[in-house]
């Protein structure tokens, strides 16, 4: 009986201790657009080391994260892949003024070496050997929207309809192309520069609008101090160098 009680006491103390330390330490919940996974991991690690604040990311398409925030998800900072949604959040009074933190671009990437000598991206997507092309959900992923704009500009959007596959995010689009489930994909430039990306080849898309990625601090944050420090860090020259490594400007 005595042993039973003492173990209860010990367990309670451990649990309470854990809970308290969770409150005591700084923690940031960051919503991150799917294309930005790789650079974010390096940036977050650096920030954690410096500031002692734990950074917990959630990766998904911009639209999905936006939807969550609107419904009250407890993020502190939002790193989107467009400007539209952070602006919308500001208008709805849910965030501070957004700032641009990266500029990306959408490219056509393929793992199939036989497609690597083509003249341009249009030749690749029009190639009859390319039966499946991954395009991120055009409503909720800005890279997908950009891809659609480019295809429409080139007059190809309707003619290639049979070939499209619509993954939920641009990261998934790269995954489809990389595993050759899709013959090619509209991916983030940073994916093309990654380890896996180097195994294939990419084509730039002049017709696609540049992806201007904006971030904002959410009004509902309980850790404003850390959030502001993080936002500042993301915009710093040091962070800029890291981002450039991954293909962002």
């Amino acid at each position, binding site marked *: 009986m005595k042993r039973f009680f003492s173990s209860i006491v010990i367990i309670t103390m451990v649990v309470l201790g854990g809970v308290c330390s969770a409150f005591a330490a700084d923690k940031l919940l960051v919503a991150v657009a799917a294309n930005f996974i790789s650079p974010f991991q390096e940036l977050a690690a650096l920030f954690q080391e410096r500031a002692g604040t734990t950074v917990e990311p959630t990766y998904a*398409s911009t*639209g*999905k994260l*936006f*939807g969550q925030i*609107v419904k009250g998800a407890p993020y502190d900072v939002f790193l989107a892949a467009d400007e539209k949604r952070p602006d919308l959040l500001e208008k709805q009074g849910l965030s501070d003024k957004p700032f641009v933190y990266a500029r990306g671009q959408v490219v056509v990437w393929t793992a199939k070496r036989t497609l690597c000598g083509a003249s341009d991206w249009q030749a690749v997507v029009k190639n009859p050997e390319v*039966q*499946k092309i*991954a395009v991120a*959900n055009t*409503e*909720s992923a800005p890279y997908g929207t950009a891809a659609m704009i480019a295809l429409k500009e080139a007059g190809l959007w309707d003619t290639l309809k049979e070939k*499209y*596959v*619509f*993954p*939920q995010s641009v990261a998934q689009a790269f995954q*489809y192309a990389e*595993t*050759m*489930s*899709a013959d090619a994909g509209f991916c983030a430039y940073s994916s093309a520069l990654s380890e896996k990306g180097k195994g294939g080849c990419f084509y730039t898309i002049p017709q696609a609008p540049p992806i201007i990625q904006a971030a904002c601090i959410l009004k509902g944050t309980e850790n404003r101090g850390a959030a502001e420090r993080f936002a500042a860090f993301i915009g710093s020259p040091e962070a800029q160098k890291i981002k450039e490594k991954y293909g962002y400007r």
Partner: protein
Amino acid sequence: MDPAPLYLSLKLAVVTTVVLVILAAPLTYLLVYVRFAGKSFFEALLSLPMVLPPTVLGFYLLLVMTPQGSVGRFWKAATGSPLIFTFAGIVLASLVYSLPFAIQPMKASFEKIDRRLLESAYVLGLSPLAAFFRVIIPNAINGLAASAILVFIHTLGEFGVILMVGGSIPGETKVASIAIYEAVEALRYRDAAMMCLVLVPVSYFFLLVINRLTQRRIYGS
């Protein structure tokens, strides 16, 4: 609201139900009437899709269905088209996903049939195959109907697996559950609500139909 995802969901559910009920019957026969080594392992394997999270199932299906995967490769060689991101692909995924739901009610139904009925059939000259169709199936009709209902509803509600291997292609793999999900993501709540409003009565209607069919048989002529 675009009705295409709804038709697609229905089409998938009907095709899956028909194919799976036909496939599950001999499998269930094996489980109930045939003794063989490793039967319990086999049975557990067949029940696996019921306990695995749909995303786990979807992940493994993705691996085998891509053009490099074992099944995808075979399919491409046999038909010339890829398996992943096609209607055929999500049918296959649905078959795996709902297999245990097809087998369980059938198994319960087969087990209820007294062995002596089968033995009577053999003595009267029926081969095991003929006995299967003339004795087992007619006396297991409740189990077959229950299997059909379960598979149908289960397929209508299928989401995670189709998300992984479907590619959300309108008219091909973008079923209602995915369309609803994407509508919610895009904040098109009205579209989502309307699709839900259609799905519920449709499911209910089919449930009624199949229940009626079974009842008539229970109470005889």
